[in-house]
């Protein structure tokens, strides 16, 4: 698949815009899914996934063709999702480090939405509950967890997408699992 993609990239770079369509078809579901799981909202997911493809198209000449295209595309999309999540949060004291959190700031400690009462959560359908629990994860853990368990990517690839050392990715996945465990203790 990467071979077809590389051929199409060369065509796009030569000015054949229509060659981009096959690239979009190949990756649209994966990219939309990541955005949906990160943002928890279909409208926003479409908006951001579309933006990611447009940015990929505009910046295609900067893609290193020796690398894996999907990694580059996922990176664009996850960065856009993280930006979007941060913009939605209240903007006071966000950069202040939180004591005892190993350099994590308030961005990562703020939950996506305020937690719902327990009775509400218990009434949820399974799939609604999955998305709810993912959206409660601090975003630093959320991106790693989504790439690991929704996209089922290897740790090494997640480290390349998020541009983080492998050890940091592992730590975030470990903490993400612990956070989820605590959220779901009563399940």
């Amino acid at each position, binding site marked *: 698949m990467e071979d077809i993609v590389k051929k199409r990239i060369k065509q796009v770079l030569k000015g054949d815009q229509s060659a*981009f369509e096959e690239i979009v078809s190949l990756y649209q579901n994966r990219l939309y899914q990541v955005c949906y799981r990160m943002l928890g909202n279909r409208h926003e997911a479409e908006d951001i996934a579309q933006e990611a493809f447009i940015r990929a198209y505009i910046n295609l000449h900067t893609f290193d063709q020796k690398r894996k295209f999907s990694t580059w595309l996922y990176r664009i999309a996850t960065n856009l999702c993280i930006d979007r999540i941060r913009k939605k949060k209240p903007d006071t004291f966000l950069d202040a480090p939180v004591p005892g959190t190993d350099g994590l700031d308030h961005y990562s400690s703020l939950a996506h939405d305020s937690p719902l009462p327990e009775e509400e959560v218990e009434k949820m359908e399974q799939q609604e509950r999955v998305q709810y629990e993912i959206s409660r994860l601090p975003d630093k853990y959320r991106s790693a967890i989504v790439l690991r368990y929704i996209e089922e990517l290897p740790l090494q690839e997640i480290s390349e997408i998020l541009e983080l050392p492998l050890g940091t990715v592992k730590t975030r996945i470990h903490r993400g699992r612990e956070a989820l465990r605590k959220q779901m203790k009563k399940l």
Partner: protein
Amino acid sequence: MKPCPEEIVQYMHDYLDGEITRRDEQILSEHLEKCQACQKHMDQLSRSVAFLKSASHIEAPEGFSDRIMASLPKERQGAGVRR
């Protein structure tokens, strides 16, 4: 009761990452056999993972790729015909 060795939780995560050494796995399983609290911890972690994996596959909405193609800038910078 003496506290559990600190590295046990780390071994649980190594195990879930599929990156545990045979020796550590042995230590973990021996510990889990005799420690209910850690057994419960491991069980909760495994269930959290299974729960995540139960998320259904999501597909892009109808007409998504058409909308992307329609919204691309007409010509890429530095490529195509210049007018």
